[in-house]
């Protein structure tokens, strides 16, 4: 930009600062926020993985074994562990935010946050245990 900044009375020169593409690296808080946003990709990934599993199961035994062999490769295991950590992060932050989005009032008073988060966590654990029991108990 040219350095000619003659002051004009009726046309104020507002200064606008551009937001950097890397704004989220400036603070740990914003970085965690972007990690959380990214974690939704891991959620999509596991949904796709489940659909893939069902699809290969439908294709017959050979296809299913092929799928399992692919899942046992160290590369896939490493990838899935990382994706799983992202999903855990997503779930935990989700449950922690729930009381903020859904305050419950009883007798005109707002319930403390933990009383809304706790049943969410409890339901999560119960459902996870039931699913694990189905999968692991079958053998």
């Amino acid at each position: 930009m040219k350095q000619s900044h003659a002051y004009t009375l009726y046309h104020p020169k507002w200064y606008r600062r551009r937001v950097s593409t890397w704004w989220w690296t400036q603070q740990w808080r914003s970085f965690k926020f972007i990690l959380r946003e990214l974690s939704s990709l891991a959620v999509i990934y596991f949904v796709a993985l489940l659909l893939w599993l069902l699809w290969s199961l439908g294709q017959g035994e050979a296809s299913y074994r092929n799928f399992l062999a692919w899942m046992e490769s160290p590369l896939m295991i490493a990838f899935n562990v990382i994706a799983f950590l992202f999903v855990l992060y997503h779930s935990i932050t989700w449950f922690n935010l729930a009381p903020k989005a859904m305050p419950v009032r009883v007798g005109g008073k707002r319930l403390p946050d933990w009383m809304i988060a706790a049943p969410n966590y409890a339901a999560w654990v119960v459902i996870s245990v039931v699913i694990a029991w189905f999968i692991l108990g079958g053998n």
Partner: protein
Amino acid sequence: MAKTITLEVARYRPEQEGEPAFENFDVPLNKDWVVLDALNYIKDKLDGSLSYRWSCRMGVCGSCGMMVNGEPKLTCATFLTAYDPGPIRVEPLRYFPIVRDLVVEITDFMSKLKAVKPWIVRDEEKPISEGEYLQTPRQLDNFKQFSMCINCLCCYAACPVVGLDQHFIGPAAIALAQRYNEDSRDQGKEERMDVLSQHDGIWGCTFNGECTRVCPKNVDPAGAIQQYKIKAVTDWYKSLLMPWGKK
């Protein structure tokens, strides 16, 4: 000599500078002084050309919001001693165009605020002879928190969505819309929903939560927006399942 602290104040004088630059001032570090007192000291004793907005000095008017060490703060409620030994960096509110020094341009916010009709909307006013609109303490409690907003714009300066998308209607405007939606005397929910259910309304919000964190009046705009989202979704399902019902 009494102890001093250095203020690095952002200066932007469009007739002199192409972009903002910092100027340092040493001010007395009095233990009962807030950043606004220091700015007033600079203007009175050191450089009378410094421009900034302020009015009430007691956290009510919402004029003196600025960035203090990168955080949006009401400068009338931010003590110098909290930053000892300094320096303290004072900048205009982030994401707003800068008019001069610490003064930002807020016309855009004013038009967004007006768009959500932050006043009591009635289909029909009842005649004065029928008396006032009564409200129970519990009905007042429903919206009182949101009514504490003083339009200081700290939440806009904190919100990354405001920075990235200038059309986003923003935290305070939505919280104030909610203040009137939750008011038992109001009948303007539908009109406000038309504005707020747009992409640039509640759905622009990513629930970063910064607005609530910085709010000097504990308004919780982030909570207001998420509650509004839930309401918008349930209303949509209701209208889908029961199209004959009252909208």
